[in-house]
């Protein structure tokens, strides 16, 4: 059954912008992204939006729908009241490029700052042996499609530009947890998680977990365990002693 929906879409660039009203046709089974595409095709050819897979697999189409961060391609129109206006705005934490497209470079920078997987010494390619139960913990985090909805919603950076340099955000703190739980990773990551990537800023509000379209338990399975391990390590007397005696400056670390 088709009907006409009232959409309010944020249009503009980094300087200025406003909500613009559109009346647009909606058909049975459609998702928000379909309707945005119909606007593009029939009313406003230059409406900027990111998308790729249209199946919740690439993480391109994040936006805020009636204020809630969602993937536009996985948000069915049928969940909304037909008579009410639907507001679509870009993710708030990142600077707008144009319309619904934001500059997500922050995330690529953070990704680059997390030290990469450290392969175990002396294990040749093809010789890696890991149990399924052991890889599953990290595999949960590797389901991440990098939609950055969690990065967008986390209050540490949402309206706090000043925290951005010191805080990697849930997605990349989870990356640290993932490597830390990797059965064969050879690096120790706990001190850096706390001191360089801002784990301490997280006060486990779980907002990130709530918006994750992959239903990854970011807070419970990644952030809290990582915090616990950081604490364990800090108060392990031997490690504590070691870190006092052999304390090195970052420059020669």
């Amino acid at each position: 059954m088709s009907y006409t929906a009232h959409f309010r879409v944020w249009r503009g660039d980094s300087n200025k912008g406003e909500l613009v009203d559109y009346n647009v046709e909606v058909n049975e089974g459609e998702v928000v992204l379909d309707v945005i595409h119909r606007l593009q095709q029939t009313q406003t050819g230059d409406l900027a939006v990111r998308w790729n897979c249209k199946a919740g697999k690439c993480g391109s189409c994040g936006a805020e729908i009636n204020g809630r961060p969602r993937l536009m391609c996985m948000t069915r129109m049928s969940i909304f009241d037909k008579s009410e206006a639907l507001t679509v705005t870009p993710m708030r934490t990142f600077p707008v490029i144009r319309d619904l497209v934001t500059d997500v470079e922050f995330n690529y920078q953070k990704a680059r700052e997390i030290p990469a997987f450290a392969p175990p010494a002396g294990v040749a390619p093809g010789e890696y042996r890991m149990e399924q139960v052991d890889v599953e913990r990290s595999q949960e985090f590797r389901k991440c499609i990098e939609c950055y909805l969690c990065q967008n919603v986390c209050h540490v950076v949402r309206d706090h530009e000043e925290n951005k340099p010191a805080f990697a955000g849930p997605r990349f703190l989870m990356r640290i947890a993932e490597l830390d739980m990797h059965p064969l990773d050879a690096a120790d990551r706990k001190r850096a998680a706390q001191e360089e990537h801002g784990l301490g800023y997280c006060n486990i509000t779980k907002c990130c977990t709530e918006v994750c379209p992959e239903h990854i338990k970011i807070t419970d399975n990644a952030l809290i365990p990582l915090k616990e391990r950081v604490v364990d390590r800090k108060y392990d007397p031997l490690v504590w002693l070691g870190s006092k005696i052999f304390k090195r400056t970052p420059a020669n670390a």
Partner: protein
Amino acid sequence: MSEIERHSYDVVVIGAGGAGLRAAIEARARGKRTAIISKSLLGKAHTVMAEGGCAASMGNVNSNDNWMVHFRDTMRGGKFFNNWRMAELHAKEAPDRVWELETYGALFDRTKDGKISQRNFGGHTYPRLAHVGDRTGLELIRTLQQKIVSLQQEDFKATGDYESNIKVFHECTITDLLKTDGVISGAFGYWRGTGGFILFEAPAVVLATGGIGKLFKTTTNSWEYTGDGHALALRAGATLINMEFIQFHPTAMVWPPSVKGILVTESVRGDGGVLTNSEGKRFMFDYIPDVFKEQYATTAEESDRWYTDPDNNRRPPELLPRDEVARAINSEVKAGRGSPHGGVFLDVSSRMPAEVILKKLPSMYHQFKVLADVDITKEPMQVGPTCHYVMGGVEVEPDTASSNISGLFAAGEVAGGMHGSNRLGGNSLSDLLVFGRRAGLGAANYVDGLGARPAVNEADARAAETRALLPFKNEGGENAYTVHLELQQTMNDLVGIIRKGEEIELALKKLEDLAIRTRQVVVEGHREFNPGWHLALDLRNMLLVSMCVAKAALERVESRGGHTRDDYPVMDSDWRHVLLVLSARGEDDVRLRRQEQVPMRPDLLDLFELDELKKYYTGEELGGHRAGTAGESDTA
């Protein structure tokens, strides 16, 4: 005229899917300053969507597997039309490429003894696909992305700059390749965000731009797959082969309309899902072609036994190569035995417990639940064929991935030959790794062997700029969306899954008209992230590539793999050794010529039984086979 941003690199890789990233890793490892360019953000390329797995004969699940079995399966799947040297390299090198990913941090699903687990897929004799649930492509692209990060971290330690040796230019589209004195000298494009132009000076360019799905209306492919690499190669003077062969994946969602074409992974069948028609019949038993009679089960009982005892039973016909399954579904629907929404039924709910489905096919469960309101643990899915993959692409030299233009390389879906007339599932991800690496290596070696670097001609860059801005200058034309929709409808209806001579001729006439309209397309608005403008530029590529598909499809008067002619329904051995080669003629026309395939090396031919080869080859071609030679000496 505005100032054009300029960069200089040793190797420029166009495309950030599996092939492009692997090529870049190799080029950088060989000491080359490398740029990676992609239309969408890093990590969003098509590769991320691959579900089922990556084929490599590691033999972790069935130790009988080896490169020779994989090679044979690949050649059979492609109806012996494959470039055999590519198929050989692919089968031999795929295991090393997969193992290497583990050293980059990949976490594949495991076997009981801790090795990489492997799953069954259509056309593969043994469980062969390394996988992670049904999100293998995500694992692959993220792993390669993270490897690039690790190389950048090494460079940062050495130089203080992450991007000193390898830099990603994303949301940047290349519109022209530049040549100087007949060899590659650079590439020209625009930033999608600002609309500003950008020029890369580089002696070597690797094309890794993926496919052409957006030529068709129903497709698993996203907006990016507009055949840019195919068209860039043509315009640079390179040749394309096998463009008539397009894979229609048998199982995509058919309802609701807005998700029509979204893929339902083959793992659903590999793990036990069955196809039935409206009469409840498992119809695939009626569609086992003669050439596959020996390998496929003829009863439901034998099929079911195969899952637990594959050595003593033949495989279910649901796992026939994709072209066979797609045609079968098409016939069932045409015969009026389709499902309510015009597909057939694919069922796992009656085949395995809900927990197993959730574990093995989590993203399929999620996809159907959210997009179609269907719970696949309780009811069957409705599925039908959709355009999925192009076997055709840039004609390359197998070992180096070089095209016939010096300095231009191609790997991944944009390259042609490897898969012959039909690709086996799982053979693309492995192809990306094997030939991505080879292309990076080929490009690095080429740069090493080069004397002076070719300089870009200023006039060529200016011409590219003028061409890109044309849609803003045009007056009175249509918008790009309208022309695109008509192009897609034309290709879907007239050069689709089942083809007829007169329909293809009609398509070619329409394409001529569309070519004129494409040139006149107008764009409204500004240059910043303007999708209307982007589509207008992509349209030019889609048109040229559509012509290649249509011309080759008209010329080949037989049916083979991803090319089915209703008016020539049989596979013809006299066509097996004929390649159709396309090159550009002017702005938007193409020229076609026939070329003989290189005969297969005798030691590879000997990997097959003569009886099987006879189904594909003409008598004269088989003189060199071990059995043939032995036979001759017997009678002599």
